[in-house]
């Protein structure tokens, strides 16, 4: 079978610095140009193509990258990831309507709030492992939603309305219907998240997470401060989810507890598993497909969810490790040595 992951990595490794920069710039340019391709076969019937690019696609990609730090890198099953998304969104909603702060000022606050809640959840929950951890995080996701549903200050089931759009920067205006501007904003956040993950993966933190995922007891006995790095994984995953939440609230102008159900957690988890746990490119591809597909086949009307489910089941049977699995390419490494 044609191995997309190995092929891609081979091309990348065969290039020098200049070649790599060229590939990266080219890829970014293509991705950035996607909003202009609405007239092609990519167009989504019924739904507005450019708005689909923003939500779900770009938003899913960002969140999947964040969740991948927790699940793919460190092997911690988090079923309540939507909580951090919600915390970012509600931070934006509250501060945006009650104070004079604008989106760009709230963004770091939202990220900080999400990271802080990552610590609040992580410190007690990460003493547990496996299924128990999954259940606690599931509960946390629901707690956040239910608090939002019952707290007067958060608008209960009506949520928060009239959230301001971001102020313009560099002469670029954020009108609520200029989807492509939001898309490019998210693209920048996605690139930052990719940079962060790739950077950390190659160093101490990445090795610590890998060792924890593969054999946590052995890791601890060989001097890895496992608890600290597990909390870090949670906190970094939360920061990405929080950032996505802030932009989401600032884009939709209206948020309610119904936007933050368990279904989102499950969908993002599906993106990670579908694409290939632990492989950032796989996860991105998974998120793009799972975000895009339901809208692309919307003409099937009610049958589309059935088809969507069928595709998922088929994929997981054919490629249980995801589209681009994590496994390291040992052959490529050895070959490089021999030459």
């Amino acid at each position: 079978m044609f191995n997309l992951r190995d092929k891609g990595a081979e091309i990348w490794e065969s290039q020098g610095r200049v070649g790599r920069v060229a590939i990266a710039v080219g890829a970014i340019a293509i991705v950035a140009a996607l909003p202009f391709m609405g007239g092609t076969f990519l167009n989504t019937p019924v739904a507005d193509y450019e708005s689909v690019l923003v939500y779900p696609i770009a938003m899913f990609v960002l969140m999947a990258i964040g969740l991948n730090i927790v699940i793919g890198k460190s092997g911690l099953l988090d079923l309540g990831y939507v909580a951090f998304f919600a915390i970012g969104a509600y931070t934006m909603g509250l501060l945006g309507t009650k104070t004079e702060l604008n989106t760009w000022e709230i963004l770091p606050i939202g990220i900080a709030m999400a990271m802080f809640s990552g610590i609040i959840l992580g410190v007690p929950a990460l003493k547990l492992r496996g299924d128990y951890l999954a259940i606690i995080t599931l509960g946390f996701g629901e707690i956040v939603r239910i608090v939002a549903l019952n707290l007067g200050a958060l608008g209960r089931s009506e949520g928060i309305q009239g959230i301001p759009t971001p102020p313009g920067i560099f002469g670029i205006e954020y009108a609520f219907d200029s989807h492509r501007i939001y898309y490019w904003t998210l693209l920048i956040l996605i690139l930052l998240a990719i940079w962060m993950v790739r950077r950390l993966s190659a160093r101490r933190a990445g090795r610590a997470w890998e060792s924890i995922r593969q054999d946590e007891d052995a890791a601890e006995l060989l001097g890895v401060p496992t608890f600290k790095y597990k909390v870090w994984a949670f906190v970094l995953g939360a920061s990405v989810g929080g950032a996505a939440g802030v932009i989401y609230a600032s884009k939709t102008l209206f948020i309610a507890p119904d936007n933050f159900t368990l279904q989102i957690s499950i969908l993002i988890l599906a993106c990670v598993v579908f694409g290939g746990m632990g492989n950032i490119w796989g996860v991105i591809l998974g998120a793009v497909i799972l975000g895009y597909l339901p809208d692309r086949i919307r003409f099937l009307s009610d049958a589309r969810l059935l088809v969507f489910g069928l595709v998922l089941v088929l994929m997981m049977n054919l490629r249980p490790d995801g589209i681009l699995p994590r496994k390291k390419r040992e052959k490529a490494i050895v070959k490089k040595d021999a030459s």
Partner: protein
Amino acid sequence: MSTSLIELKNVTMKFGGVTALGDVSFDVKEKEILGLIGPNGAGKTTVFNVITGVYQITSGEIIFDGKSLAGVKRYKITKRGVARTFQNIRLWGDMTALENVMTAADTHKKSGLVSGLFGFPVSRREEKRDKARAQELLDFIGIGEYSDRLAKNLPYGVQRRLEIARAMGAEPKLLLLDEPAAGFNPAEKVELAATIRKIRDAGYTVLLIEHDMSLVMKVSDRVVVLDFGQKIADDSPRKVQDDPRVIEAYLGVPEDAS
């Protein structure tokens, strides 16, 4: 006489009603190879587990390098200078041999996640230094050519050696080897004995659990024998071999002698 690096004082470890270690006392001197032997279930691996903090001892005291290990977190015990191998190989299979050693070497890094993210000079420097040191350790153990291979794909014997290299990566003063020769053929055992001596000569103190008598007797400076959680001998290899209690523990007592 040289000083003790680690000292177990009246260590008792009970699991419910079962006494895995009963009032065991012995020490390991600096730069010594101490063999720890005993029949199956004698409590040898339990000794490793109480030293490395896997279990909290029921009573007694463990002094390492002058300080008690009571209540110290596992990774901090490693940082203080104790590292171990596992009887059933527990490498990180999806990492390369080099990464396995580097991960253990991270124990002593000053730079953490944040300086790694932003590429601070201290992080770059440590990364470079540890990579070189990890490769040196693999060469030292004799598996240098496998550094880029995934641990799970390595031949069995190489995996066993990698376990040792990984433990040495954590720069321990005391190296705990749990049956490093398990599954080795006689030729490999001879080679391993030489490696263990080489490790000691490089300045490490070794506490060795091993079933293979000829190996233990050959490399150990001193041998401690456990039987049913009790220490029954603690002497030079030659004397231990002739100790009637040791022979009894291993072979049983003839009917007519009792």
